[in-house]
């Protein structure tokens, strides 16, 4: 292999690998579901879950949570914890749970990645529209290089961890309510 061929080969490799630097994987729904929430009350009501403030993960973007995945993860956490008797899709639920991702601070560099997240949790009576819960919930999660060597994986796990903790804290706050 002469110098020109070597140069061309390395150039192609660098372009491919540098393109991958910006690539990242979105937070997965399964990684966000909050399992094993202890001492939770079981409300004899049904709920409709809506999520907003999330975003899709672009090819050159950092790890994000989509609204669909976030809503599904909240639903699965509710079903698993039995916080409500049923999750309803569409009309006819007793309560409407709206969760908005307000901010998510993600690091760009570092050996340990800590992601901080704030979400607005509101629960309202579906019939009267009266709010029974309005709470800002903040959570954070750190993933070290020992837990994930690849930066994009480390960031995704930190995002998932922060969202998972947020869901846990949100459901615990709802559990403390006295619902009709």
């Amino acid at each position, binding site marked *: 292999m002469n110098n020109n061929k070597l140069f061309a080969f390395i*150039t192609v490799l*660098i372009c491919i690998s540098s393109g991958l630097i910006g690539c990242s994987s979105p937070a997965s729904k399964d990684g966000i579901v909050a399992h094993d929430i202890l001492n939770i009350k079981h409300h004899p009501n049904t709920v409709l879950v809506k999520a907003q403030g999330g975003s899709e993960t*672009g090819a*050159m973007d950092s790890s994000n949570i989509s609204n669909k995945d976030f809503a599904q993860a909240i639903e699965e956490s509710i079903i698993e914890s039995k916080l409500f008797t049923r999750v309803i899709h569409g009309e006819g639920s007793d309560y409407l749970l709206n969760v*908005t991702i307000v901010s998510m601070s993600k690091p760009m560099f570092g050996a340990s990645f800590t992601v901080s997240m704030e979400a*607005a949790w509101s629960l309202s009576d579906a019939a009267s529209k009266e*709010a029974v819960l309005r*709470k800002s919930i903040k959570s954070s999660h750190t993933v070290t290089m020992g837990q994930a060597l690849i930066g994009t994986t480390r960031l995704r796990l930190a995002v998932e961890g922060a969202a998972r903790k947020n869901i846990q804290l949100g459901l615990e706050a709802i559990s403390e309510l006295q619902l009709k």
Partner: protein
Amino acid sequence: MHKLYLKIGVIFIIAVFMSGCAVNRATATLDPTADLAGIKSIYVTKLAADGRGINLLITKKLTDMGYQASTGISVDIPQNANVVVTYEDRWMWDITMYMLELTVTIREPKTEFPLASGNSFHTSLTRKSPEEMVDEVINNIFSKGKRNE
């Protein structure tokens, strides 16, 4: 051989910077239990780390929109403030410093519950000035509020 390494180095640096490409995002959310229609007085809480006066840009924008807006530190919130505005700005360097991301949140003064929020994210190739970022975020938040009235 030195020239070869130099060429590889230059291409690598160009490729790394090119991978930033253009990412544009401008979103706004409104909690279904929130109502922005009755807002008259707004207090913009200055972010302690903000040395660029973004709180002043937000206050000016809100004043231009007809609101009674003031700004200061978080302990000086006026009694008559209907809502409090908080914000987070992120900056990057690419030849010059530019605002990469701005998040503005409108909160209930007592509970700090986020009633509405907006976020704009523009990478280097499609960068906007801080004034344009503030305009975009605030306009998106309040137009979202109007659509839900």
